[in-house]
């Protein structure tokens, strides 16, 4: 389980910025090897992609949809949702892709942060503080869960995390419903607006472009902070140890490092991202239900998004989140001329996409783009040349 993603992980570190560059500037993914290793390039590239994203998803795809007579355009609200899941899976990938730990219980952090933020909003309806509180709760929860689960590895680790997640789910649905509203879902969420309520989240500051809401801008900024932080982590010596853990745990132990502590940290870091995502989710949706927040299928969705996008790259999983949410929320409503309504077949479509990607591009969508860019620019290199580059990137920090 751990071998493959870890190999890829090593290769992908310096590529962090490529995808951003591509999405923003078309096919100009030239091998700017030096640039790609720099933090600010990654963040700037990502920022450019985030500026274009809603326009591409809603207006351009909507236009295409009108032209071909299929409703394939996105809708206002979808871009923020993709980014929110993107934040979660960037963190999840630090654990799965880099450290090589497959957690099946990350919904626990996502959901508990969402509930915590929702509950906190009834006291102080400030989105920023909601994110802080939600993240804090998720982090505090990750410590005991990680402390117990990390003692086992592989499938035992996965099952332990799954168990904790499911325990929370059933608690929220039944006994805890005095706090969570159980199956009715928690809906009394008050998120005023940013900066003491001055900027309502659903305002659309740019005339004519109603997909650019304040909520989207808020999510995009949080996303950028997340990308920057994750990039710092994977390019630091600390990140290098995490990668080493994914490759060969025993070696790391022989070097004299405390494996347990590093794994626990990786677990908690990924829980921080899940917590931020969970709190953002509740601000965005103004609603949270145990099935969405805490059920194991949500944890499984994180795994699918991450693998689909590419476990080996920093921002690859965001592409996975995009494809996943697009299929779930847009493709599911498409009616094809002959086949009829896709409706319930969306899971089948998603499964087909997943199998295709994993089969043809084992390194995920991101890996496919990266390969494509390399061929296009004739930048040879091949997969063999990547590993040292990664090591360099790390050491230079």
């Amino acid at each position, binding site marked *: 389980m751990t071998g493959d993603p870890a190999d890829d992980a090593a290769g992908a570190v310096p590529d962090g910025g490529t995808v951003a560059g591509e999405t923003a500037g078309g096919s100009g993914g030239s091998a700017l090897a030096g640039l790609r290793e720099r933090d600010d390039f990654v963040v700037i590239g990502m920022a450019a992609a985030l500026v274009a994203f809603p326009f591409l998803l809603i207006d351009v795809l909507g236009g295409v949809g009108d032209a071909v007579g299929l409703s394939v355009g996105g809708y206002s609200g979808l871009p923020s949702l993709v980014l929110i899941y993107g934040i979660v899976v960037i963190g999840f990938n630090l654990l799965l892709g880099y450290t090589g730990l497959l957690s099946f219980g990350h919904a626990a952090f996502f959901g508990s942060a969402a509930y915590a933020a929702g509950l906190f909003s009834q006291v102080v309806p400030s989105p920023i503080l909601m994110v802080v509180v939600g993240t804090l709760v998720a982090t505090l929860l990750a410590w005991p869960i990680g402390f117990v689960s990390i003692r086992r590895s592989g499938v035992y680790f996965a099952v332990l995390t799954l168990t904790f997640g499911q325990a929370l789910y059933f608690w929220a649905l039944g006994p805890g419903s005095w706090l969570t509203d*159980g199956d*009715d*879902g928690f809906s009394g969420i008050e998120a005023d607006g940013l900066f003491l309520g001055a900027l309502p989240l659903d*305002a659309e500051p740019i*005339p004519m472009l*109603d997909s650019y809401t304040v909520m989207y801008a808020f999510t995009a900024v949080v996303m950028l902070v997340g990308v920057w932080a994750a990039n710092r982590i994977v390019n630091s010596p600390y990140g290098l140890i995490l990668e080493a853990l994914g490759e060969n745990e025993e070696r790391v132990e022989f070097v004299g490092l405390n494996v347990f502590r590093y794994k626990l940290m990786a677990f908690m870091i990924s829980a921080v991202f899940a917590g931020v995502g969970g709190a953002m989710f509740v601000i965005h*949706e103004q*609603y949270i239900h145990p099935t969405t927040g805490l059920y194991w299928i949500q944890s499984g969705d994180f795994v699918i998004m991450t693998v689909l996008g590419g476990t080996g790259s920093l921002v690859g999983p965001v592409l996975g989140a995009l494809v996943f949410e697009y299929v*779930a929320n847009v493709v599911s409503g498409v009616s094809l001329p002959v086949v009829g309504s896709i*409706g319930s077949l969306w899971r089948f479509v998603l499964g087909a996409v997943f199998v295709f990607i994993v089969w043809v591009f084992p390194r995920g969508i991101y890996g496919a783009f990266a390969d494509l860019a390399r061929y296009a620019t004739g930048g040879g290199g091949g997969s063999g040349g990547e590993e040292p580059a990664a090591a360099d990137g790390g050491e230079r920090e």
Partner: protein
Amino acid sequence: MAEDTSVLSRRDVLKTSGAAGAAGLAGLAGCTGGGGGDSEYSSLGNYPVEGDEVVFGFNVPQSGSYSQEGADELRGYNLAVDHLNNGGGWVDDWSDLSGDGVLGKTVASVDGDTATDPDQARQSAQRMINRDDAIMISGGSSTSVAIAVQELCQEERVQFQCCITHGNGTTASECVRYSTREMFNAYMTGAALAPVLEEEYGSDLNFYQLYADYSWGQSQQRSMNQFLTEGPGWTQVESVGTPLGTSDYSSYLSDVPRDEADVLILNHYGLDAANSLPQAIEAGLDQDMEIVVPLYNRLMAEAASDSIGDIFGTADWSWQLENGPTQTFVEAYREEHDRAPSYAARIAYTQTLQYAAAAERAETFYPPEVIRQLEGHEFDNAGLDAETMRECDHQAQRDVLVMRGLPPEEQTEDRLLEVLNQTSRDDAGYACDAGPAADCQLGDYGDE
């Protein structure tokens, strides 16, 4: 890009009103919004409806455990759209409807999959509202989905017409102005069942309950306890929660005290009931006591068809009713689909027509005016005799059917249950300050 302009004008007054930081934009949106269409009212939600089509969004479970129910809902919706545009069915009988679209506009529809997941349902509804400009959303086959979507519809100022939702919450503490429910609820089930059970089984009995441990199951067992204790004076031995989605009930069933309990109430729905009921029969509990399933649906009756003989429950409606509207609907449905409709199809059908009729009466799609037409509306043309869509909590006051399962040898494909009693709404209903309605605060119309 022309489309963007129109989207902005339609949606933005609401979104930016009260937005101190975006006051300028609100002004702009207000100006452009006043320009088009029947601009008697300012734009709100997806009003005004532009072009010659009006879009309804049908948000039903197409995957997951209620997909069968969702498919029948969709058949009801599509029949309603067909009749609204081309006449037929109840449209010919309802004086408000013309059979030539609604307010001169052709009805178009979009559908989506709720997957019986509240968040999936909200995403799907959001897409219908934002991208497809749906003026009304209907659907759902569980209370959590109904509550999640109606909350969204209240925010977005788009009407939600509940389909299947039986939990009290929808028209109690979670009720909203922009949603109406014609289906009855757990509280009314208790009120309708208790007198029938007393007549059949006698008074001074002990009953034991199992309930699915989530909001519907909890409210259902609470109301059974209330009505069986108050009415026939029965005594509850115990009420035990079972996790939602349990497949093996044998440990819970073996705990039922056979010598003490006279009646076992299984507060389970859908797949849960399809599991628990046959297992209870298998364990021989029906030899020692009577079994009651408070809410029937077709899925469960079919899955447990060998076990439902003589078992009581309630249902929203049955195709076996002999009144005129029922027969008209069953006939129209049979023509298309060659079998009898389940109650899911009728609610879907009637909720769509109710909205259309209210818009016709209001002579506009302006949501607050449509809602005011729905509120307090009295009708007897929806297959259940006299009904009132009550203003105080948007819960229809209507009769409740008490059903009895048929023994396997008397069953046919469509006829698994028989109508035992149509409990009048005076007995099944409750006042605005009583029961679930006491917790209801509907929220605003959006034009105050």
